[in-house]
């Protein structure tokens, strides 16, 4: 995942997107059923929508519509693929772009950020709709609150016969989840296959992230302004972090663990030293929520905790992936490694299910 391969991938992505955008609109399979009253009734019932123009023939006849119409926001429902009908679906111009991001780029996370529908007219029972999809945009790589990613935008137009009755713009962020190892919360809730509704939220707002941290990354990531002090005593620790290992210094003579690392054992005064790899679990021993002053490269508030490791030592680190108000003494944590820029990875702490 060097900058070079990212650049090569970026070029191939953009070339693919350009071809797909140029190919224009690709028709999809027609709705399985024409617009119909039973599906409208299920929908309005579940939504709690009492508007009688959708279900009451008399009220609808007396309305400006002159008869039953479907709720405009149902437009996408008519052409949803169903539970087991997906297999026969034709590919859309979006599929292989999402697949390349997912499979080759490691942008496995996905969140939907925008859904914009325009209704040219209301549709009525008996009309059979068919969708057509066109890819309209690929933008990135961007840094967002969720991780680095690409915004993919496509448009769907629904037709009744030759007439376009409604349109939708849909945008998703495909991102590289920041936690490479996390068994949960790796953001990979729904891949491109679930594209009719591709939202998974990990509690963060992709819009905010894009707005505040969005930055073109093609020329390499902006360096994170805070750097750890790496020297002969601490190099082993940072080498471990780079490999996804949490290394704790151990005295080569008496075997006592100590952190932060130093040149001499405080128990036996030996300078012989090695390390062990910690399990990566811990719990909050103490913490503060930092609001002020501002810290370069950080958004306040953030949590700084003293984390008690089961191995016996304590380590200072940030608690992430939860609101500061959720942090408390004794909270179970698991280490997570965040790439802060092209060179620096930091070990941080995320909530662990007890």
């Amino acid at each position: 995942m060097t900058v070079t391969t990212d650049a090569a991938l970026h070029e191939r992505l953009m070339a693919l997107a350009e071809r797909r955008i140029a190919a224009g609109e690709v028709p999809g399979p027609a709705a399985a059923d024409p617009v119909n009253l039973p599906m409208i009734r299920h929908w309005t019932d579940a939504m709690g929508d009492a508007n009688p123009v959708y279900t009451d023939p008399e009220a609808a006849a007396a309305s400006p519509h002159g008869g039953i119409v479907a709720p405009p926001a149902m437009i996408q429902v008519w052409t949803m693929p169903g539970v087991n009908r997906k297999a026969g679906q034709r590919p859309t111009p979006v599929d292989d772009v999402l697949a390349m991001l997912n499979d080759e780029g490691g942008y496995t996370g996905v969140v939907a950020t925008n859904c914009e529908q325009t209704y040219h007219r209301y549709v009525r029972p008996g009309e059979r709709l068919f969708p057509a999809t066109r890819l309209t945009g690929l933008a990135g790589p961007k840094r967002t609150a969720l991780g680095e990613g690409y915004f993919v935008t496509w448009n769907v137009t629904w037709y009744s016969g030759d007439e376009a009755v409604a349109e939708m713009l849909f945008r998703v962020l495909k991102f590289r989840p920041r936690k490479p190892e996390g068994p949960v919360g790796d953001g990979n809730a729904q891949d491109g296959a679930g594209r009719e509704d591709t939202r998974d939220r990990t509690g963060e707002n992709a819009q905010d992230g894009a707005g505040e941290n969005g930055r073109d990354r093609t020329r390499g990531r902006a360096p994170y302004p805070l750097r750890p002090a790496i020297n002969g005593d601490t190099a082993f620790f940072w080498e471990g972090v780079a490999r996804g290992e949490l290394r704790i210094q151990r005295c080569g003579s008496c075997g006592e663990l100590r952190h932060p690392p130093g040149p001499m054992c405080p128990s036996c005064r030996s300078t012989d030293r090695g390390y062990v790899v910690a399990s990566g679990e811990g719990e909050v021993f103490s913490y503060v929520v930092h609001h002020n002053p501002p810290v370069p490269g950080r958004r306040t508030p953030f949590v700084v905790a003293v984390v008690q490791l089961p191995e016996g030592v304590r380590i200072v680190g940030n608690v992430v992936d939860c609101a500061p108000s959720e942090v408390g003494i004794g909270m179970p944590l698991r280490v997570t490694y965040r790439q802060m820029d092209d060179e620096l990875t930091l070990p941080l702490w995320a909530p662990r299910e007890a």
Partner: protein
Amino acid sequence: MRTLTEDQIAIGTVLPDLVIPLTPTMIISTALATMDFTAVHHDVEGARAQGSKDIFLNILTTMGLVERYVTDWAGPGALIRGINVRLGVPAYAGDTLTFTGTVVGHENGEFTVEVRGEVSLGDHATGTVRFSPPGE
């Protein structure tokens, strides 16, 4: 059911709040009614396995509720022209979704309502709905 006419609506008009308790039944029945069978909208274990804390509202339902919020107020004769939603935090089962809205635009007989749907985590959906009162 009355439908508001153009002269009954003005820029600055505040819509009454709509509070929707997000019961599992609500999340699941709307997911199925919108033909969205993705596990995260009906299967708690499936949702957790994928990193979510619970099942959550699907986007097609968010769109439907935003539409309902405006027509509940504007009346059955209002013609919905478009819905533009920016998606925010998930609306999980057990939470409450509260819609607030204000009329912010009026042009050529078409009104624009700014809508915000909030849950305990923050904004679930923010955006605008365009509609025309009947008779235009």
